[in-house]
């Protein structure tokens, strides 16, 4: 194999080493190629298809992460057609992705209080930190209470009494005065949908969340590292045109080990965690109903670090900071 290979990319000849996957080579050459499930040199795991480029000779779209460059290849990496197909693949993934990126309460708060994080800390008993996040804003007189109207718990039984909780924190003089700059969420980013709760799901929610606030903690704890969200935001997607008809259970949190948690409803079935663990995660079934699961007996074989390979918030580390 020659050490230097010439390929045509977007009608320009570039030189590459030819030793790595097309995706790696293109990135090395300074091109920006989006991808979710690429696994470095491990080819043949192509799943998300977001990294597709056009092979101008065959007219086919090929996943660049699973392609070995060939001398004389002619590739297009950016065109309206490619952007459209990448967008379709993202929308298809999002139509089977049941999650709230941000909690609706935080999104609607006119004062910009990170409501979900305040309530999360409150539930952990960390009231001082919670109060600090409110940042001295007083909403105990708020009459419209958009946070409570938007609250997911409202569609299960009754909304969380957010205003009372925040009021309790502000007026608790035993806590130090909060001076933490309260940062709210970036509202320009994409927000996923969860669709309607089924009746059994409502029952499960009631049992699963019985802590003082009754909050469902619907905000995704892996949203900061979520590449699906980043790419959807970049592509300007507001909602999937294919609707949402997922069979996945919302907020079914499975403790793997240590700080590692798994939420199947956010999984895009790319199988990165399956390929990178030995007798750990595995696929179940096939077709649209295919799932990634972690058998009980295999949990001990998993290392916390695996969370980093997950392109969504399906695998995440639960920490105080991640809330």
């Amino acid at each position, binding site marked *: 194999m020659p050490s230097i290979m010439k390929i045509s990319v977007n009608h320009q000849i570039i030189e590459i080493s030819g030793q790595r996957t097309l995706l790696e080579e293109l990135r090395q050459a300074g091109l920006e190629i989006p991808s979710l499930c690429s696994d470095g040199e491990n080819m043949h795991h*192509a799943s998300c298809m977001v990294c597709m480029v056009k092979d101008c000779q065959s007219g086919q779209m090929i996943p660049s992460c699973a392609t070995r460059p060939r001398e004389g290849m002619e590739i297009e990496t950016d065109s309206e057609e490619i952007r459209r197909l990448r967008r379709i693949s993202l929308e298809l993934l999002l*139509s089977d992705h049941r999650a709230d990126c941000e909690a609706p309460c935080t999104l609607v708060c006119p004062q910009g209080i990170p409501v979900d994080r305040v309530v999360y800390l409150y539930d952990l008993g960390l009231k001082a930190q919670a109060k600090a996040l409110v940042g001295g804003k007083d909403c105990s007189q708020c009459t419209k209470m958009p946070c409570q109207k938007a609250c997911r718990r409202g569609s299960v039984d009754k909304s969380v009494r957010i205003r009372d909780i925040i009021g309790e924190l502000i007026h608790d003089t035993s806590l130090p005065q909060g001076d933490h700059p309260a940062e709210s969420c970036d509202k320009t980013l994409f927000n996923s949908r969860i669709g309607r709760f089924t009746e059994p799901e409502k029952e499960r929610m009631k049992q699963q969340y019985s802590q003082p606030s009754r909050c469902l903690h619907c905000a995704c704890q892996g949203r900061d590292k979520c590449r699906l969200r980043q790419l959807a935001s970049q592509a300007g997607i507001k909602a999937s045109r*294919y609707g949402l008809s997922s069979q996945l259970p919302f907020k079914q949190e499975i403790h793997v080990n240590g700080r590692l948690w798994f939420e199947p409803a956010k999984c895009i079935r790319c199988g990165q965690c*399956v390929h990178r663990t030995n*007798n750990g995660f595995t696929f*179940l079934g*096939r077709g649209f109903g295919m799932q990634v699961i972690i058998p009980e007996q295999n949990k001990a074989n998993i290392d916390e670090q695996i969370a980093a390979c997950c392109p969504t918030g399906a695998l995440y580390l639960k920490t105080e900071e991640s809330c």
Partner: protein
Amino acid sequence: MACEHCQASSPDQARQALIRRTDAIIDRIGTGREVAIPLLQAIQEEFSWLPSDALERVYQRTEIDRAQMISVATFYTQFRMIPYGEHIIRVCCGTACHVKGADIVYDAFRRELGIAPDSITTADQRYSIEKIPCLGCCALAPAVQIDNRIFGHVQPGRVDQVLAEFEQQTAQQQEASQTALQQPPQGEVRLGMENCCQASGTAQVREAVEQACRELGIRVDIKPVSCVGACQQVPLIDVAMPDGSITRYPKIRPEEVREILLHHFKPASKLRQLRNKVYQQAGWLHTDQGWDNQLYMEEQQRTRSINNFLEGQMRISTEGYGLMNPLDIDEYVHRGGFEVLRKVLEMKSEDIIEEIVGSGLRGRGGGGFPTGRKWQLVAGQADTQRYVICNGDEGDPGAFMDRILLESYPLRVIEGLIIAACAVGAEEGILYIRAEYPQAVIRVRRALEMCREKGYWGEHILGSRHCVRLRLFEGAGAFVCGEETALIASIEGQRGFPRLRPPYPAQQGLWGHPTLINNVETLSQVPYILRHGAESYARTGTPGSKGTKVFALAGKVRHGGLIEVPMGTTLRQIVEQIGGGIEKGEKLKAVQTGGPSGGCIPAELCDTPVDFDALNQMGAIMGSGGLVVLSQSDCMVDVARYFLNFISGESCGKCTFCRVGARRMLDILERLTSGQGTLEDLDRLEELALGIRQAALCGLGKTAPNPVLSTLRHFRHEYLEHVQGICQTGSCKQMVQLSVTDDCIGCTKCARCCPADAIPFEPYRKHRIDTDKCTLCGLCIEECDFNAIHYENKRQSPDHRN
């Protein structure tokens, strides 16, 4: 059930027994990761499902771990995680069965057996029921398999009879008595004993022949022969006399057998002759059965439709149809089999390949890649460890060519495979056959043993330098494994996930070595080419596609079956001449070719000569060769929905476009077929279909939208009608209801046949149909002698109350 051995005194002892049996299986099969599928198959065969204790034992004793096991066992449909009932009813949901009402048959069985909605097994554990993609008996549609027995033309109102017949046969099964007679045979009676022939009564005819011979003292050879292909004309027997004359009797009944035998053969003794004469005459006077006996029909009248069926066909893959015993290796050799293998063993590899290249043979599995080029590619690799694989994982609903070829001509396929191995320099060959074809598996296994005994494969074949080892691998039920790279993954003991090509299997295939994968039919053409020469072969066909093609003709055609025609025959010729036109006097609407990867060709384009390129241009593909004929009473949107439903269940799940995309297309089609679709849905459907075609990972994914794209192209008006809430054909059950017209005289025939009691028993009054109870099975339409019951669209009907 199978666990009678382990009815030990304590659960612990039972567990011990189970582990001992599991150990025996592991010792027999092996412990490597690659044996996962054969191991699971053996465990299931032993216990009839996969008990968790047995699997735990597998984790302990083999390299197969839990993650691999779960991933593999849940990928393939063959494996069962829960115990099933004593007998398994498999309702075929192939294309041909679908258009003839397989769903209604399935519901009827469930109703008849009283299976609870959330279960698949009867309360007494006697029966379990499941739908399966295709039994490959499309000419018998709708077909149902109970254990290993197939029942054809099952009507929803008659499932009780099917079950009764099955129970009766099960009870009778033990009494198989044989009386050996010493005289030399007076002649030969030939009958097709393929899975599908047996289903349509050939088994009973055979019993009748045996019984009649015993009673009459006639000594004939009963010879099971390869398939004639005329599935609508069975049970069919040929009576061959020592003088070489053959008389053919199609569609005979068991009670006619006796008379036919008497016509050709003399009973043993004078006394018997006399006694028979008397009985015969007495029977003759008392019944009128003699008058419509096949024996008394004119030769021409008797065999006209079958002659039309056979006319215009040409036999290469199916040479020797109807007269060769599939497992008689001496007969095969006598007819020129393996002769060419001897020649090939002496030839240089390049010369063999040159012949194949020159013949213009193209792969019959679907894509139509030139076979010779593929052989060259493999032979040209530097890596000398090479494999050949015969792809017999025919999963397309509506196709059964490979099954018949494997059941009827296993020796020819094996010869083709050995030749391929010698040509490309491979020392190991694998026949990959889907487990849904038990008869094919049994015959090929037996044929392999016979060839081995004769030295046609093994070390130094017939004393030459070539060594080829062959083995059989049973596919475990996954449509996607027809795709080369997925097939390889499954032989390696993995889920059938395809990979991006290149590298092609010819470069890096099984275990990373060059691998030649050819379809069953492709290989069965190989011996002919080498025997008669490339030139002679290339004389048949069209410029782009040479030779013949085997098709499975099924659907609404009068005479379905397995046919082999020269490339370039038009679809109309196939449907009209060979198939005898559309049944029930309806008009041809379209022909569906290529199964879920193919498309629908409208009647007006059916005059195009069939070859790979012409079909591609029409938006369909040759595929493996299933032809499902659709009539005016078939709804094209429903056909598209049917295929997408199939694909979204069979998609391997690896890439987004196929896994989620196919499901989203199905969502839209389900909205359309329930009358909720919009015009925007049509646009979204088309955009998605084009996207999947361009960007799915493997060949199956890329072709998955073809049924939608081809129907959108040729039958867009039907989609538009569905947006308006109209299904002209009544196929989309959610959009229609049954109604009774004024032609009804109140004969109560419909009320009596209705399985859902939706028609009150009101003699001499126009019947009413309770639409809440009605399951739309359509049985009443067939029963009504006055043509007074019709489907009508809900949205159009004036008295629609909702």
